[in-house]
């Protein structure tokens, strides 16, 4: 009985050790996971002075790029449209320069109050204003990489279209034929010999450019965006008799 009790105790101890080991094996990852979760949450409220702004801006930066490319794509198209439809030289510079000028201004003004505001407010425990300011600050700075100034260079654009590997030879030649046909129609229009109205020419022009962009957008997205962004600028040249004659 005395010999069996220590043996039983030893067996019980080994059993408990095994159970503890198994429990520790399962609990340790859970504890590490919980610690990681808590660690991920704590920096925002705990360290409001320096660590609050990066996490607050990081998620906003991830959410902001998705709508902004669409705005960046759609914004340049309507902006040059009225400017070059109405007056080819005067109005275009202001709308083109205003967005870049307006973009850095909110970025600088919004970042300035964050940095000085964050450092004194850190002991005062104001994470909410800092987070809101960081949210307000993070949206403007995301614009600059998206917006690409499209200075129209027809020769460069033409050369890029010639050199691109996204379109085959037959397709390039077909597109060139259709471009030549459209140019001939514009030439007749400027000479007063065309049956097409400007609206009809505009429709044909848009359809042709849509074909080009469709063919390019998978194989050469930068060139497709360049063509799309210069759509109104090219239209301004086509509709201006003097500039069209200089082509």
């Amino acid at each position: 009985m005395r010999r069996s009790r220590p043996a039983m105790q030893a067996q019980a101890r080994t059993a408990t050790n095994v159970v503890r080991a198994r429990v520790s094996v399962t609990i340790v990852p859970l504890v590490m996971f919980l610690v990681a979760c808590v660690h991920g949450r704590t920096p925002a409220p705990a360290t409001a002075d320096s660590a609050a702004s990066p996490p607050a801006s990081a998620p906003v930066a991830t959410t902001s790029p998705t709508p902004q490319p669409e705005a960046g794509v759609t914004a340049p198209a309507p902006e040059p449209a009225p400017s070059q439809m109405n007056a080819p030289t005067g109005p275009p510079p202001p709308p083109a320069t205003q967005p870049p000028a307006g973009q850095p201004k909110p970025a600088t003004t919004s970042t300035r109050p964050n940095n000085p505001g964050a450092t004194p407010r850190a002991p005062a425990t104001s994470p909410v204003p800092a987070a809101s300011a960081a949210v307000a600050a993070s949206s403007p700075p995301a614009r600059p990489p998206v917006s690409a100034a499209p200075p129209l260079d027809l020769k460069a654009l033409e050369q890029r279209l010639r050199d691109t590997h996204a379109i085959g030879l037959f397709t390039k030649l077909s597109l060139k034929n259709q471009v030549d046909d459209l140019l001939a129609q514009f030439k007749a229009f400027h000479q007063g010999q065309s049956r097409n109205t400007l609206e009809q020419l505009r429709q044909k022009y848009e359809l042709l450019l849509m074909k080009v962009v469709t063919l390019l957008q998978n194989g050469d997205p930068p060139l497709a965006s360049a063509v799309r962004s210069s759509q109104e600028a090219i239209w301004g040249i086509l509709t201006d008799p003097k500039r069209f004659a200089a082509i």
Partner: protein
Amino acid sequence: MSVRPIAFFALALLGSTGLTAAQGPSPGQDLKAAIALQGFPCDQVVDSKRNADSDYTATCKDGNRYHVYVDATGRVVVKKL
């Protein structure tokens, strides 16, 4: 042990796709785009026969056959056969 072959295979696959992308579209894709630009229906070119320089006969997946060539004036002509 098993990570290296997978990584190597992935890199090789990426390299091959980049190479094909740099080479441009296949003749079938080019013919398909040329046919579509002329307003003819062709969802996919399943067969193409080269008759001469810039002269092809393309068979589309829907069974339509087209004669695609460049005429003397440099225009791409698509004729349904």
